[in-house]
């Protein structure tokens, strides 16, 4: 039975191969290299990337796109090399890590490819033509400022770190720096990988370990959702939870006046949209594009939450 299945499959492969016609020559090919959906934020990133590419393709049929999603920095280096082999004219890249990606992107630049980096910069300055990013230090600072304002007379907080990466370090360093010489006491920091399940477990253990916790910085909205459930289960009262990044479910909680969550920090995966659009414009309409475009990380509260609420997005 399996022999027959095999021959059917082989025949199918031949048919498909003959149907695949060589791609029509486009005016420009834009390569897009982003991390695969390893947690909620990157999931949103993938969603918005695909959506933007589809829209741009429809609007400008003479521009072609090649998307590569990578699950590690090493794989991203390989993917960029593969994109180069397809003769791309521009590269939109959200680097997994700054250091390992610097050389391959530099090599692409040397071949005359227009470079746009998103979210994270490269380890060397002056490689990219366009930078579109969020403000990671401000992300950590905004969290610190929030707790300072929330607990002017001092308070005990616990912190969940993300996936061990450069951006996590930058945020935490800025957070620690802003809390230096204040009355806010950070009881402990553990990695929760920006993941709801891990956030739930880490929070359960924090609650066992510390009889008094005033606030939690979960570092990310996914982890915050886990933390909220753990606090609810332990029936602890008066614990303030702050997440970050602007997941629609959490912004909804802020809007509705949740008893634990009254704010969020904006750091949306939608920042890939302007990057792809700007690069497309450069090739489609010869618009002059270069420089830096930095999206702020403001604090979202009940007053301005509606502005940041996208009910239909997956993140």
């Amino acid at each position, binding site marked *: 039975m399996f022999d027959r299945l095999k021959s059917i499959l082989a025949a199918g492969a031949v048919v498909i191969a003959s149907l695949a016609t060589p791609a029509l020559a486009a005016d420009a090919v834009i390569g897009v290299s982003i991390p695969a959906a390893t*947690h909620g934020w990157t999931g949103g990133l993938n*969603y918005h990337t695909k959506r933007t590419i589809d829209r741009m393709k429809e609007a400008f049929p003479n521009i072609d796109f090649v998307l590569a999603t990578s699950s590690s920095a090493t794989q991203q280096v390989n993917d960029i090399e593969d994109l180069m082999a397809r003769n791309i004219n521009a590269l939109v890249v959200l680097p997994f890590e700054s250091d390992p990606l610097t050389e391959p992107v530099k090599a692409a630049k040397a071949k005359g490819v227009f470079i746009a980096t998103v979210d994270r910069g490269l380890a060397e300055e002056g490689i990219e033509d366009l930078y579109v990013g969020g403000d990671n230090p401000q992300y950590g600072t905004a969290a610190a400022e929030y707790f300072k304002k929330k607990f002017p007379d001092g308070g005990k907080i616990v912190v969940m770190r993300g996936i061990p990466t450069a951006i996590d370090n930058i945020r935490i360093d800025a957070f620690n720096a802003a809390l230096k010489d204040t009355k806010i006491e950070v009881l402990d*920091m*553990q990695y929760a990988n920006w993941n709801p*399940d891990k956030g739930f477990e880490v929070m359960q253990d924090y609650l066992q370990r510390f009889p008094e916790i005033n606030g939690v910085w979960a570092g990310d909205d996914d982890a915050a959702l886990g933390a909220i459930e753990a606090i609810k289960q332990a029936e602890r009262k008066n614990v303030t939870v702050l997440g970050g990044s602007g997941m629609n*479910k959490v912004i909804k909680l802020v809007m509705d006046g949740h008893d634990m969550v009254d704010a969020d920090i904006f750091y949306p995966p939608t920042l890939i949209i302007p990057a792809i659009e700007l690069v497309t414009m450069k090739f489609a309409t010869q618009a002059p594009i270069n420089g830096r475009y930095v999206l702020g990380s403001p604090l979202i509260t009940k007053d301005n939450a509606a502005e940041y609420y996208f009910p239909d*997005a997956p993140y």
Partner: protein
Amino acid sequence: MTDITATSTGDAAVSPSRTLAGIFEAAGPLIALILLMLIGSLMSDSFLGAENLSNVFTRSAIIGIIAVGATFVITAGGLDLSVGSLSALVAGVTIMFMNSAAEVLGPGWQLVAAGIVCSLVVGAAAGLLNGVMIVKGRVEAFIVTLGAMGIFRSIITWLADGGSISLDFSLRDAARPIYYGQVLGIAVPILVLAVIAIVGELVLRRMRFGRHVAAIGSNRHVAFYSAIPVNRVRILTYVIQGLCVAIATVIYVPRLGAATPSTGLMWELEAIAAVIIGGTALSGGFGRIWGTIVGVLILGFISNILNLAGFVSPYLNGAFQGAIIIIAVLLQRDRSQG
């Protein structure tokens, strides 16, 4: 593995030698767990509190139920790497099913029951698919389930558009007791794990099916010539694994009410590690469910202690976990033959 060594480990399992080394080998995982709990109680005052123990047992129930299924698969000489992805897929499909069935069934126990049936069907079907590909298609279990791992993970990512699939807030109250509820003061997931572990232990050690599983894991050809229905038993182990994943998912979904592409990441390794820590042979032929449960608890308590004590730099948590896992297995190996 040759027939002779297979038989000797089999014998040792049935009637453990009365020497000290033999006792150590038989009770190794239990000794490791007791040592770990001693360390935990020294590190933190809250460690032995009823609430903390209940937390860790409840959390461990999810991996524990999956690991019971993995014990069957591994004892029969197989391997299933797809369980983590399958959990995510079953969770996602079940949530989508419940959200859309809510209009017909209303937010009551009927809906929860329908959700449980849905996840059992999906889990069993996926297990059957794995089993048939491995046994009838004669593809290595590693390859089939590695492929399935990628396929299931991609399907859930695609269904969720890369984001998360959430149970409607109006339905959560009906499902919530499955994770957070208690019967006679014991959390429901712990009871479910206990029932599944006891049934699993009886089936694997006391029933004909379980003996067939072990015989096939020892030597598939000898089992075949002994008139054991090798193919059917092997496929059934994967179906059992799929059902266990489904039951674990039923407990997982009410916890946070959502499935994401990162749900169940690395669960397959945790489940396999628990099985081996518990004393089941990775090469098959011998398995014990109680050991698996002890293995799951060891894994659960390690991360709990690291979180509670906070004395290790979080950068090094993985190293401690790794070291304790190796020591736990080291304790129970028979080294008398060099």
